[in-house]
């Protein structure tokens, strides 16, 4: 026997396992969602920090004037985690082409420098080296680990191969990592500090140990660690977490409210036999405590599990590609998530507890007493009646008969729909921000001009067709896209093709009169695509069609309908089209090759100020045949220009000269053939000697991996959010049916068929669904706009109404509603009519 009235709590929960489990599922999902968001953010933050460490090293401060005294002070400083010295040797030339420097490192310095081993190990002895593989190839193609490599007059034992970095490849300056000699006086001392609240203060203290000019900071890493989470994202995060917390409260509130409504007669009875309102509230809050004690730990475990599950999914889907974000579980996220869960549960349970405490004892006595004397409006359900007949009329009257039940049901659907629309909008906008994946991310190698070779400016070096043919013939090559230098034009368009946002940003459009007409002038960058590039770019077409022959015959061009324009007023980037040009429109182009005065690698943006002479004789007309929704390949022109794509044929006509490719972007059949392909291509391009091969497999792999991770995470969130929504709807609708068993039994007694009952209930569900979806869509759209405003702090984009999300939410609600009533309907079918009519509880 129970020893106190409070144990009624436990008895209720045990006797209503399904209801209890459903409520627990809601709590678990919500807590899991909150905690996994927290873990994800922490992991992302760590990933960003790790990314900085990978690129720039994990040191915070570096001193170039090093003596024993400084070393001692640094080593004995309690705020320093680790310190080490390295030194750079003299510059060396390899095979007359590539520059390299010895880097003498100590064991501690290696931990602080951004070197990553691909194979082997770091050098431990003075005659051992580790090299980037691209440099190794230049030194000795046949070199193997453990073997000897010769640089100038020095011989080293090759002990490790480092990952290639894009920066060193493009700059053409390699690093020969070896172990330092104490005799080297040009030491640099690196130090990593403890990361805590006093990081900046400690850093300033350490700066004082040497003169300003001899001190360097790793500003990239410090920015990440000091700031914590980027401020621009805080706005978005606040909205997201606010919505999740609100949804958690709403879902749990709903579950408690349903459980109280289900037991309203029992509470009435308890009141009748002398339970005080306070005692009833305690019973409800005790239920909340119990559910919290079980639900929150399970929710946290699920959050952790979800993080690792996503990591595993990522590894499987990414096929063993590098994991960009390591899952990170931290105590603070666990505590905060648990607190959020506890607060949400108690806040949610409070109202139902108060409601339960106010239940009149009369409710227990007879069902007659539950019909309050009130002005009940006679409702005419015209629409429902007209479409669905009497069943529709009855369904429409039924749902509004009990205002509380109606509000609870509609509210739960509103929550579910709002959650889904908001999170999907967040997902779509995030993917917009993060994923600019295009065909360039599938490129494995690039052949570009070696601007140091033969003293030529890189602009004049082109690739011979014979080299391109030879590369194309290699068995491991899947496709090679020709790349051309960008060409600059003045472009004149009709005034009605201007975009308001661009007008507001300013600096893009100029007014111009052409043939006595007011038109708009903008700068244009023209890029040439070869046939293979055009073919692969077809899937980026937003409107129009692309066809090389048509482009050639009609002087056709393709516009890229997405630019990145920096807005000085908002200090943010705007992403969107800079014109409203469509297929069929015409553009007037005049060459502007004098636009940039450039000397080798120094590009000065010296625009021609003053009036632009748009000379009729130099003007050529082109026709827009298609618009791309974004860049099919990374754009090599100016981002804020009108971005034009055309064929070599058309470009030669516009420029009046022959054009040859300046680069080649190569995709191999299998990334596993990397070394074979690299060797073969290097052999082919070694003949002219003025070309070099850049290996971008690693960089693209990491970019794709990061984007895939974000996609999986975001989809995961949307799925969990949808599940919470489903639990909510199922809970509400099934309870509605269970509470009305007697009513349905009575209807069946007077002759309603099973089919007729199913029709009424289904229609009720649909009507709830429609009403809830309408309100939920409005609120969800409002939240999506709030998120858009928040995300604009990260990156400006155009706002689109989440119509697809609304459609999915409405259809989903109907479907879930329909499915959730099937089980109770089946059970009711088996019930004895007489028993059901008599049933009180």
């Amino acid at each position, binding site marked *: 026997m129970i020893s106190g009235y409070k144990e009624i709590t436990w008895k209720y929960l045990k006797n209503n396992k399904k209801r209890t489990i459903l409520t627990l599922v809601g709590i678990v999902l919500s807590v899991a969602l909150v905690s996994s968001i927290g873990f994800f953010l922490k992991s992302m933050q760590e990933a960003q920090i790790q990314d900085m460490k990978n690129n720039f090293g994990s040191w915070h401060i570096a001193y170039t004037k090093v003596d024993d005294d400084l070393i001692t002070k640094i080593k004995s400083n309690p705020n320093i985690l680790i310190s080490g010295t390295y030194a750079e040797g003299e510059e060396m030339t390899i095979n007359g082409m590539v520059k390299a420097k010895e880097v003498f490192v100590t064991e501690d310095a290696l931990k602080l420098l951004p070197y990553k081993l691909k194979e082997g190990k770091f050098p431990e002895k003075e005659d051992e080296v580790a090299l980037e593989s691209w440099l190794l190839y230049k030194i000795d193609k046949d070199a193997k680990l453990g073997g000897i490599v010769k640089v100038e007059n020095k011989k080293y034992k090759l002990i490790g191969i480092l990952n290639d970095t894009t920066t060193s490849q493009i700059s053409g300056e390699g690093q020969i990592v070896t172990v330092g000699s104490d005799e080297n006086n040009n030491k640099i001392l690196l130090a990593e500090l403890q990361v805590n609240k006093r990081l900046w203060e400690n850093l300033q203290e350490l700066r004082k140990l040497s003169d300003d000019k001899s001190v360097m900071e790793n500003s990239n890493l410090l920015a990440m660690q000091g700031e914590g989470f980027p401020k621009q994202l805080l706005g978005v995060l606040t909205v997201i977490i606010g919505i999740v917390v609100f949804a958690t409260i709403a879902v749990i509130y709903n579950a408690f409210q349903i459980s109280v409504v289900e037991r309203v007669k029992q509470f009435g*009875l308890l009141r009748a*036999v002398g*339970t005080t309102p306070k005692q009833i509230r305690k019973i409800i809050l005790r239920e909340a405590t119990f559910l919290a004690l079980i639900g929150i730990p399970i929710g946290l475990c699920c959050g952790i599990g979800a993080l690792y599950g996503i990591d595993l999914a990522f590894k499987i889907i990414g096929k063993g590609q590098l994991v960009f974000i390591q899952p990170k579980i931290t105590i603070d996220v666990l505590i905060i998530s648990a607190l959020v869960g506890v607060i949400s549960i108690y806040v949610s349970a409070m109202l139902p507890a108060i409601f339960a405490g106010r239940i009149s004892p009369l409710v227990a006595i007879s069902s007659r007493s539950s019909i309050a004397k009130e002005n009940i409006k006679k409702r005419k359900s015209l629409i429902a009646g007209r479409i669905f007949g009497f069943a529709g009329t009855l369904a429409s009257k039924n749902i509004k008969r009990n205002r509380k039940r109606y509000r609870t049901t509609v509210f739960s659907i509103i929550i579910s729909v709002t959650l889904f629309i908001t999170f999907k909008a967040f997902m779509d906008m995030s993917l917009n921000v993060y994923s600019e994946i295009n065909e360039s991310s599938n490129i494995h190698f690039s052949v570009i001009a070696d601007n140091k070779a033969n003293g030529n400016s890189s602009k004049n070096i082109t690739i011979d067709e014979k080299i391109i043919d030879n590369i194309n013939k290699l068995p491991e090559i899947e496709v090679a896209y020709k790349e051309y230098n960008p060409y600059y034009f003045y472009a004149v368009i009709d005034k009605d093709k201007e975009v308001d946002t661009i007008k507001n940003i300013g600096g893009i459009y100029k007014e111009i009169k052409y043939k006595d007409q007011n038109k708009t002038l903008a700068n244009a960058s023209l890029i040439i695509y070869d046939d293979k590039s055009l073919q692969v770019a077809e899937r980026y077409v937003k409107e129009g069609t692309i066809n090389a022959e048509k482009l050639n015959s009609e002087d056709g061009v393709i516009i890229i309908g997405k630019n990145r324009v920096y807005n000085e007023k908002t200090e943010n980037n705007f992403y969107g089209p800079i014109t409203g040009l469509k297929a069929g429109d015409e553009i007037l182009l005049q060459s502007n090759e004098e636009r940039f005065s450039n000397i080798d690698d120094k590009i000065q943006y010296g625009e021609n100020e003053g009036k632009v002479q748009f000379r009729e004789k130099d003007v050529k007309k082109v026709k827009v045949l298609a618009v791309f929704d974004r860049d099919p390949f990374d754009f090599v022109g100016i981002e804020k220009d009108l971005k034009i794509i055309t064929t070599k044929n058309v470009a030669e006509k516009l420029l009046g000269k022959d054009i040859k490719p300046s680069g080649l972007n190569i995709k191999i059949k299998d990334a596993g053939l990397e070394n074979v392909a690299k060797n073969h291509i290097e052999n082919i391009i070694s003949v002219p000697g003025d070309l070099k091969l850049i290996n971008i497999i690693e960089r693209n792999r990491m970019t794709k991996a990061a984007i895939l991770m974000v996609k999986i995470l975001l989809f995961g969130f949307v799925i969990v959010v949808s599940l919470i929504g489903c639990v909510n709807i199922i809970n509400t609708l099934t309870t509605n049916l269970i509470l009305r068993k007697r009513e349905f039994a009575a209807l069946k007694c007077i002759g309603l068929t099973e089919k007729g009952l199913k029709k009424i209930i289904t229609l009720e569900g649909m009507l709830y669904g429609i009403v809830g979806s309408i309100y939920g869509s409005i609120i969800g759209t409002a939240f999506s706009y709030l998120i858009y405003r928040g995300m604009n702090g990260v990156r400006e984009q155009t706002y689109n109404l989440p119509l697809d999300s609304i459609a999915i939410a409405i259809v989903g609600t109907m479907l879930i509603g329909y499915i959730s009533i099937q089980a109770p309907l089946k059970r009711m079918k088996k019930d004895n009519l007489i028993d059901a009519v008599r049933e009180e509880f």
Partner: protein
Amino acid sequence: MEILKIQGLKKIYGKEGNKVEALKGVDLTINKGEFVAVVGASGSGKSTLLHLLGGLDRPSEGKVIIDGEDIYKYKEEKLAIFRRRKIGFIFQFFNLLPVLDVEENIALPALLDNDKVDKEYLAEIIKLLGLEERKHHLPSELSGGQQQRVSIGRALLNKPSIILADEPTGNLDSSTSKEVIELLRFSAKKYNQTLILITHDINIASSADRVITIMDGRIVSDKYLK
């Protein structure tokens, strides 16, 4: 000795344009130990009267004085405690908590008081009610008569001054009805409790000490039979 006094009791439901006067000013005095039957047609106001006597609802006007105290001066908390200790309710539809077994349902008023249940007395009641073999059964495992006996047990546990029964046999067959009424009379006599019972059954009414007839919210007849 006077146990219950009602003065000018009125109960009005609804608002302007939709008013229903369930009780139109009732005056009544009941002595301790009396067995009073309240009869009347459906909608006459007898259930409303019983609810107001038991503090289940608040009157629109008038007083209910039990054991010398105007119970409607109490706030909600105190009224609930009053109901728990002074009144024993028996409803037509049993109204047991489905999650508690027989023993626990009977002990409920004591459990609400956070009191240790007098196990001996509980056992006595269970025996009196003939429920020994069912004491660990849930309400769903009991017949209608057994359930009503449990609700009687619950009403008796705290030895209340007044037992209010609203058509306690309305849902039972005739032989069970007889049993239940006998039980009520027996325990009321044994513990010197006042029993006020609403019934449609003439036989039950005629077994009472006093019969009060209510019509249209007023007492139209008040006869002592014994």
